[in-house]
């Protein structure tokens, strides 16, 4: 069998677009921008991904899920490549996914916001509460339930919520 005749890049891209993030199942690895490259060779398919955080435990799962998915689609020989440059940024999360995050109860990253500053910047100025839409929210902790999130609380509805922080 020759993979080149059998699959197109878009097809494989679509297969992988069905793999959900293990921590945030409403978005996929394609939404996140973790999937970087697909290369189809006659006898092999090379998938290039990039980690969100260096220590993100989901990366191993992503690798396993990608292989599993492609195996079920008939692609046996899959090589996974990890690239570190350019480093992943929350700016790569697509707009549809930002909306999905919000509906799921996670405040999406405020793009280009000043929480990329180093010293004494308490996150972006306005993080909207995903529950009630209020702009009156405060940062409780820069580190939340996973490496990619910070913990906020809404001053209006008093609900705590996760904020997908910018990197």
């Amino acid at each position, binding site marked *: 069998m020759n993979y080149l005749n059998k699959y197109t890049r878009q097809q494989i891209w679509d297969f992988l677009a069905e793999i959900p993030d293990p921590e945030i199942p409403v978005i996929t690895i394609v939404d996140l921008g973790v999937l970087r490259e697909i290369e189809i060779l006659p006898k092999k398919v090379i998938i290039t991904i990039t*980690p969100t*955080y*260096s*220590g*993100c*435990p989901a990366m191993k799962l992503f690798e396993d899920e990608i292989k599993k998915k492609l195996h079920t689609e008939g692609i046996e020989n899959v090589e996974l490549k990890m*690239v*570190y*440059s*350019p*480093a*992943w*940024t929350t700016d790569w999360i697509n707009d549809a996914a930002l909306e999905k995050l919000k509906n799921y109860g996670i405040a999406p990253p405020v793009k280009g916001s000043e929480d*990329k500053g*180093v*010293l*004494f*910047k308490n996150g972006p100025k306005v993080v909207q509460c995903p529950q009630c839409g209020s702009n009156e929210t405060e940062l*409780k*902790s*820069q*580190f*939340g*339930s*996973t*490496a990619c999130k910070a*913990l906020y609380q809404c001053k209006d509805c008093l609900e705590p919520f996760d904020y997908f*922080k910018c*990197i």
Partner: protein
Amino acid sequence: MTQQDALINYCLRLGDTSLILGQRMAEWTSNGPTLEEDIALTNISLDLFGQARTFLTYAGEVEGKGRTEDDFAYHRNEREFYNTLLSERPNGHFGDTIARNFLHAAFLYHLYSALTKSKDDKIAALASKSLKEVTYHLRHSSEWIVRLGDGTVESHQKIQDSINDLWMFTGDLFVMNEVDELLIKEGIAANLNEIKKLWDNTVNEVLQRATLKRPIDGFMQKGRLEGRHAECLGHLLAEMQFLPRAYPDATW
């Protein structure tokens, strides 16, 4: 010394430092002063382990003898570790940990910033990845330094004592040898004399804001370049390396 030997050693320094500091932070698991802080400290640990893995893996690639990240982490003795002396300091109380993390994060922040321009593409890529994470670590610890320093009389005194106690280990961060010399010439490594100036500025700015005094430089303990460590590293390694050494067949 060949450039290859120098590069292996340089990667081990970066990888070991993240690994040992990451292991220290992991000791905070379930011991944090509040739930939020517990999560923050262990998230920082996770970032550091991730960084350690990439640098140790790269050391193995450069060496080309098939050694993996696990071989480096679990099957070397303390004299073969090149982590900074500051990274191995015991956690002490929360203020001691914050002081150590702050002095260290300020160092890594400026080091990684410089290394993003390294002529070794892999080092540059790993540094730009690590920099994003260390930026959060620096912010976390510096905000605590200010909160504790500019807090109560007791918190002020405690965090000042912590800074004072750790100061003698900061000189070791900036020592260089022929490895640095060779790699700086090639545009791969960062000149630590330059990093020291930037570190001074950051440390001074935060201490001032925290109403704390910068200790006067006295005797500086050194040894990371030769793998000379304090006794505490041996205890840390004994715990970290026990399982793979006792059960060599164990797999993840």
